[in-house]
């Protein structure tokens, strides 16, 4: 652990001996008891990515333990491994001191581990009791379900853990918070003593969060162990006893909630050693290419997902947008490219007001897009490469001549892209599905770059691709910047953001909360803004 230097300002921080727990942390309390869960050196690889890189985690019995980290840090993979939904490539799992290996959730349940998923797994048209027993119905003779017995046990479990539900209510008629309670009870009903809750507060309104936390505290009092995944720091500090921070698939530290502030946690999540900016020769000073002014976009519930956002990108400039996912980035991107109509505000492309222009018009006017999800938004997986290269540019040469598709032209351009951007493929006629993720991404970058856009919206341009392809993509973006391309870069990868951007803005709860200079950025500030800790601290002071 080399990151101690940046943490001196944290109160009660003693680095590294107590915070980092590479060895089982049982010497402190419960000397005789073995921890409820112990993960040692868990590693899980997916093609091209390491989701978990020898993760260590120790959860004491009867505590609420939070796992914190950005989206993509590897929290969910770790929990899936613990719950038997995926198998670790390396590492040891111990439950109550006994080494275990799960190949299905059923085996995890048998060991007393239960998981409450972020998206509820309930049958809406069935009653609470039917949902609770679904899949493990208690039987009477002659194949009849023992509803009376089940209800009695449900009442028992409910009383024991202080959770009240009406067994005969239809799930369809329940509020979100109540449904979550049914999910928790369902897990307890099956005898779980260790509960994994995957971002349980994401779907709840504040009052429901309070109710949930009250329930969790009661569960803890009754001896249950709770693993709680979240990235909302205030909540984590409120509810948990211990907190483990995961970053880029590695455990960074395990700390006591009482010993840290939101700022400390934010710093742990972001990392204490930030990469230094590598984009050279700042050439900013060109005209404004893309301007977003006071933009507000409403979500389905008519709440502002993007709230009064203003940002300008000049020619030859890369503006990086930092922020934890789900803070309005997707809505902002969609409004700029024309998928979502903003409620108010203005978007200007090269001086032209494009606020209500069609996607096609924006594309033809020089707006390029590297979408955040290449499979769902960027490619026609079953179509040949040349059709994929034409997508988004099918109205212009060399892909079209008048109303006709120019097949030779399109294939020629695709061959050029393949050459220039090093897309490894047997030809231009294979389907996009056949390519590896890195090569698919290089095809998308190549298609956007070779169309010579004026403004590029790049959303997570190197997500999920290997290091070599990543370096290629970064070089492509830098080269385009040198030629005057204005880029709005959305990324969760701080190395990418700081390494490429001329300016970094931070997005939190739909607003741009800070504008930072990547050369002078420090992790504590960046982390505080990204997680809202900075706002909370100023509000607390006021």
């Amino acid at each position, binding site marked *: 652990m080399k990151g101690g230097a940046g943490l001196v300002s944290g109160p009660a921080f003693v680095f590294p001996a107590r915070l980092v727990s590479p060895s089982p942390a049982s010497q402190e309390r419960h000397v005789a008891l073995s921890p409820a869960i112990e993960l040692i050196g868990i590693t899980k690889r997916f093609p091209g990515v390491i989701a978990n890189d020898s993760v260590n985690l120790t959860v004491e019995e009867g505590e609420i333990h939070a796992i914190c980290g950005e989206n993509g840090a590897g929290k969910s993979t770790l929990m899936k491994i613990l719950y038997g939904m995926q198998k670790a490539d390396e590492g040891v799992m111990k439950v109550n001191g006994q080494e275990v290996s799960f190949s299905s959730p059923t085996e995890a349940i048998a060991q007393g581990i239960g998981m409450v998923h972020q998206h509820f797994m309930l049958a809406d048209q069935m009653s609470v009791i039917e949902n609770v027993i679904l899949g493990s119905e208690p039987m009477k003779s002659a194949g009849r379900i023992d509803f009376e017995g089940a209800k009695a046990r449900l009442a028992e479990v409910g009383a024991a853990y202080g959770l009240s539900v009406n067994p005969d209510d239809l799930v369809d008629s329940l509020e979100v918070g109540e449904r979550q309670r049914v999910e928790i009870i369902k897990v307890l009903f099956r005898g779980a003593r260790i509960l994994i809750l995957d971002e349980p507060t994401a779907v709840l309104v504040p009052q429901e969060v309070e109710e949930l936390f009250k329930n969790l505290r009661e569960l803890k009092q009754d001896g249950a162990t709770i693993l709680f995944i979240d990235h909302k720091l205030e909540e984590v500090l409120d509810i948990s006893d211990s907190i483990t921070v995961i970053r880029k698939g590695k455990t960074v530290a395990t700390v006591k909630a009482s010993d840290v502030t939101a700022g400390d946690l934010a710093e742990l999540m972001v990392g204490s050693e930030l990469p230094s900016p590598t984009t050279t020769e700042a050439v900013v000073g060109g005209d404004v290419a893309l301007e977003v002014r006071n933009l507000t976009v409403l979500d389905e519930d008519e709440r502002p997902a993007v709230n009064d956002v203003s940002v300008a990108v000049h020619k030859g400039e890369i503006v990086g947008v930092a922020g934890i996912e789900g803070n309005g980035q997707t809505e902002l991107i969609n409004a700029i490219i024309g*998928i979502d109509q903003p409620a108010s505000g203005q978007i200007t492309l090269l001086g032209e007001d494009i606020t209500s222009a069609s996607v096609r018009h*924006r*594309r033809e006017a020089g707006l390029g897009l590297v979408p955040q999800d290449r499979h769902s*938004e*960027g490619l026609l997986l079953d179509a040949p490469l040349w059709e994929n290269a034409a997508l*988004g540019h099918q109205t212009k040469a060399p892909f079209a001549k008048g109303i*006709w*598709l120019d097949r030779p032209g399109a294939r020629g351009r695709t061959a050029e892209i393949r050459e220039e951007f090093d897309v490894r*493929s047997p030809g231009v006629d*294979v389907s996009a599905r056949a390519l590896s993720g890195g090569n698919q991404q290089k095809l998308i970058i190549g298609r956007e770059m070779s169309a010579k856009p004026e403004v590029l919206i790049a959303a997570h341009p190197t997500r999920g691709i290997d290091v070599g392809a990543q370096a290629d993509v970064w070089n492509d973006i830098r080269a385009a910047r040198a030629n005057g391309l204005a880029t709005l870069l959305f990324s969760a990868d701080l190395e990418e953001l700081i390494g490429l951007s001329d300016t970094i803005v931070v997005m939190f709860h739909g607003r741009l909360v800070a504008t930072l200079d990547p050369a002078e950025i420090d992790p504590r500030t960046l982390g505080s803004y990204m997680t809202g800790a900075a706002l909370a601290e100023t509000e607390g002071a006021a």
Partner: protein
Amino acid sequence: MSNPLVRKIVLALAAPVVAGVFAIIISAIILELSGSDSIQTFQTVLENGAKLETFIDTLNRATPLYLSAVAAAIGFRMNIFNIGVEGQYILAAFVAAVVGSRIDLPGPLHVLVIVLTAMLVGAAFSGLAGLMNITRGVNVVISTIMLNFVATGGIVAALLPRVIEDPTAANQGTPTIAESGRIPNLNGIVEVFTREIGKGRELTGVLMFAVLAGIAFHVVLNRTRLGFDIRASGKNPVAARVGGVPPKRMVMYAMLATGASAGLVGMPEILSDNNAYDQGFIQGLGFAGIAIALLGRNSAGGMVFAALLFGFLDSSSAVLQVRASASSEIVVIMQATFLLAAVVAYEVINRIRQRDEVSRAAQMAGVTS
């Protein structure tokens, strides 16, 4: 070099051949189980199939099937499951027959007006479902099913009695269209290459429309920007939208084109066979078109084979009925097993092909697979 090519051809032919063999085996088993001689039945079908008249009959039956398949395929290529071709063609044929019987124009113009009327009515009726979809989000499957009933059980059933010419006739229908509104048969063209066609068999001139529709379908879909937008929307609507394809407009285009093509389905009956819409007007072609589009993989060429196959089997059904050597329903069973087997075989072949591609691409990328 030649090896991958051979493999490609084998893979392309494997699915239909496997499906055909499977269909024949299943039909043989069912024939034997029902007490018929399967060898003799197949012999009858083949002997009959070798006749020129059967060939003409097959083409006549394949023509509306093909037009119906093209109509369905336009939607399918965009992932729109328009199953309203049935209602669209019946309504279109009815209106076209009424209009055709009430006007008097010189030859080609009369035919043209009838055809255009049918296409317009089909397009408008199909466009209705499209409009409901893009303005109110009504599912096309649901709206087109319901509109089928509106067309056949509602509009046509209500209006037909008002236009019946002779209330005492056995088969009541619209007045017969004048000679100028009939399309000449194509017997002359066929007879250039063959012997004289037996009496009573006429190759419908509507075949030309089917040929044109197939060519237009292929060219627009594969060679134009509009076609690219349609295919992109079908393969990945989100990516197409991000790529500038206006989704609502594409839905309307597809629905209108489907309807216009559906309008032609009833034309053989109106322009060459009956020259009127009557109570015995042929039903079910809209649904058969879905099966043919499926069998022909929504491609212009594939659907030609599928339509000819179904047309031939339909034609054989009549012969089996006459000879009474086996129940004519065996034809329906054969069609169904063929379809089912083909769909499964296509999927299997598709996976083999994808695996081939992935391993080739992986080799290129220097990754060991």
